[in-house]
């Protein structure tokens, strides 16, 4: 019973979130630190907590591709772990040592997945999106798209500046001073490029601003 007019459903939901984060985090750390067979303990705990706190998410653990991936994780170490001599010995002796290492890794992957599902399923995506959107998410897609398109321009700046420096004597003498000069020149041209891009962005958005309802924000530098 929650006193003081607090919504009991909200309090229960908050408790679930805290439990999910604590159990998820603890099992994750334990799975990374423990070896075979103790690693099974955090794995079991994470899966049991997932069943109790969010049964619907357990279905994600029955994905056939996940189990195919885990099978690869189990089998591959037989050929890659240890020195060539050890590998030959392991394969000759049934590969028990490498197989145990592979199973341990697979259990760790499974625990990590269960812990992530546990934590992720209890935190509302809208809240995460709101936080990201408020600080870094806004306009990030546009920035990524512009960044990829600017790669040739950036490489051209690097090429041009290096060429200019080479024509003035290159790095034969005063290497450190010339390196500093190169970094400053590239930096200056990069900042100038940002100004050009910002101006182009504002120009491109001018029709939208002209027809939009909102007033332009008064703050900011004048280009």
């Amino acid at each position, binding site marked *: 019973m929650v006193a003081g007019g607090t919504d009991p459903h909200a309090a229960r939901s908050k408790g679930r979130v805290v439990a999910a984060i604590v159990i998820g985090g603890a099992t994750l750390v334990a799975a990374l630190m423990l070896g075979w067979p103790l*690693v099974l303990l955090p794995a079991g705990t994470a899966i049991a907590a997932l069943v109790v706190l969010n049964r619907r998410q357990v279905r994600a653990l029955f994905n056939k591709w996940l189990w195919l991936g885990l099978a690869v994780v189990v089998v591959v170490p037989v050929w890659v772990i240890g020195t060539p001599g050890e590998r030959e010995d392991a394969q000759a002796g049934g590969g028990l040592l490498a197989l145990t290492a592979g199973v341990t890794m697979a259990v760790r992957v499974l625990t990590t997945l269960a812990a992530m599902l546990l934590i992720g399923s209890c935190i509302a995506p809208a809240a995460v999106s709101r936080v990201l959107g408020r600080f870094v998410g806004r306009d990030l897609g546009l920035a990524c798209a512009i960044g990829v398109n600017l790669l040739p321009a950036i490489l051209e700046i690097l090429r041009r500046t290096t060429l200019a420096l080479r024509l003035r004597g290159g790095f034969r003498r005063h290497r450190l001073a010339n390196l500093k000069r190169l970094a400053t020149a590239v930096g200056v041209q990069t900042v100038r490029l940002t100004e050009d891009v*910002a101006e182009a962005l*504002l120009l491109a958005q001018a029709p939208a601003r002209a027809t939009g309802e909102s007033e332009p924000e008064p703050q900011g530098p004048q280009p």
Partner: protein
Amino acid sequence: MDESSEPLRSPARAQWVAVVAVFGAVWGAFEISLGAFLRSVSIPMHGTLMTGIGIIIMLVARRTLSAGSHHGRGATIAVGVVAAAILPLSVTRGMHQAMVGILAEAACIEIALWIGRPSRWRFGLAGLLAALIPLVQLLTVMTVQYGPGALSTFREMLLTKQGGERLGLAAFTAGSLIGLIAVASAVFGLVCGMLGWSLAGQILTRLGRKAE
């Protein structure tokens, strides 16, 4: 109307997008050229070397934005996201680990610079923290793969594959080797952070802008 669907209304917002895009592209260009080469030939500590370049780029972007009307918050992590988005253009081994590393380093710098005004020492501290990420990432991956035997495997790998024996490190234990690498990485990160501050100051001076 949802804010995210609005056009870029202010010059400050357009400048944020432009700085993030351009500096992210610069870091991405370094990662898919120099970084891909270093990863392919397995140069020891190549992750830390690329982190140094990333630290300088992120911090210059941050100071450039802070010199304008924008406070620059969120810019370093956004630069990391753009660089990580460019990375799949180069198909080399270890690309996914590099992507995770880039995002972790960007987040680390963002957290270090989140509160307070930027200064040379704050940039140095941010660089110091970010430079430890490759070591932490390597140890985490090795712990996932080898469990409790990760430390001895790490030592063996460092001495045999990365030339530690030739450098006279054979007498060191795994713990002291990790400590040594952590200190070296931290000093490297500190220097890179301070270099980022100085470089940004020089760039802003050359452009005739007032550096903070």
